[in-house]
């Protein structure tokens, strides 16, 4: 066993991981959103978005328009929700904007989903980003991996196997 070769390989692995992390954080800074790429988890926006679709977010806009599809997080729940803005009220003095959202596939608006006694979302506080781009279905891999333990083990095995086999 060549120690130098093994160490180089380890360094390369670290390099790959670090660049992936840098890419993600860089994208976060550019878009001003803590998760600039999200995978749709529910069918509440069907037929526009299905489970597993990938969405690209942008959060440098100070205001949202009615009709925008936004991702928001309610404090206390860490699941991001992708829904459409139905109403906006903007206070010209303070610059604060209130939003009411609804899923295209839901009958009613999102008031039952909001934090206790809240009737609106606040643009600057609750919104993670506005959906700008869309790729269908590719994100299903992540849902599959996170919800199926065999898939997770299989993927780990595959990575380990490819690491072992990659001596040339």
């Amino acid at each position, binding site marked *: 066993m060549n120690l130098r070769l093994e160490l180089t390989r380890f360094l390369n692995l670290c390099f790959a991981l670090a660049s992936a992390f840098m890419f993600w954080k860089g994208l976060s800074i550019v878009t001003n959103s803590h998760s600039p790429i999200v995978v749709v988890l529910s069918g509440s926006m069907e*037929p*526009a978005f299905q489970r597993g679709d990938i969405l690209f977010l942008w959060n440098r806009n100070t205001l949202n*328009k009615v009709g925008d599809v936004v991702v928001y997080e309610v404090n206390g729940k860490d699941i991001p929700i992708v829904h459409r803005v139905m109403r906006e*009220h903007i206070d010209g003095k303070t610059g604060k904007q209130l939003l009411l959202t609804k899923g295209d596939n839901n009958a009613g608006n999102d008031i039952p989903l909001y934090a206790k006694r809240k*009737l609106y979302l606040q643009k600057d506080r609750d919104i993670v980003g506005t959906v700008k781009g869309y*790729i*269908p279905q590719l994100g299903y891999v992540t849902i599959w991996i996170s919800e199926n333990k065999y898939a997770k083990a299989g993927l780990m095995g595959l990575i380990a196997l490819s690491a072992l086999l990659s001596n040339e």
Partner: protein
Amino acid sequence: MFSLSQRFQHISNQALSFAIFAAVFVVATTWAQLYRDNVFELSSSIGKVDPNINVRTSRYYGSVNGKPKENIRLTFDLDADLTPLFNWNTKQIFAYVTATYNGKLKKDVKSEVTFWDTIITDKAKAHITLDNVKSKYTIWDLEEKLSERELTFHLNWNIQPWIGSLVYGETTGQTLVTIPERKVAPKKSKSPATESEAN
């Protein structure tokens, strides 16, 4: 030299670059077609807007701590041909009728609210003609009253693509409607939500 993993890497790289190229091509042609068809200047007409004012005391109708809140529903006519919005990268169109208005007590507050919307997935059904249709949603304002205000109605659209960027636009028609004063009905002890009148 030619190992399995190398071959796999080569093929997946090629597949990825082709997929990116195809996606860029689709998005570019879509935008070119949208501008060629002049979709950002489509016309629409909204007419016969007939508001109907209710007072609600439920949280789900905008009431805070049970204070009465004016809710507005309406009937209206709409005619708009959104057929040009359909091209080879259109998955669906979300068309929505909104109204913009200014605050009355707080003049600085500007609002836009959705009264009606629809999802169109079929090009053959993209010409919307509505006659005396009820609004889908009941609308309340931040203030207690929404009556005696000027609302400007227009039709907006959003193209959901098969892949690429979401496209938004507004049609050119505008309709100005003044919501009349609410006639105060005699007080009833129960069912506060049933009072309504139209004019």
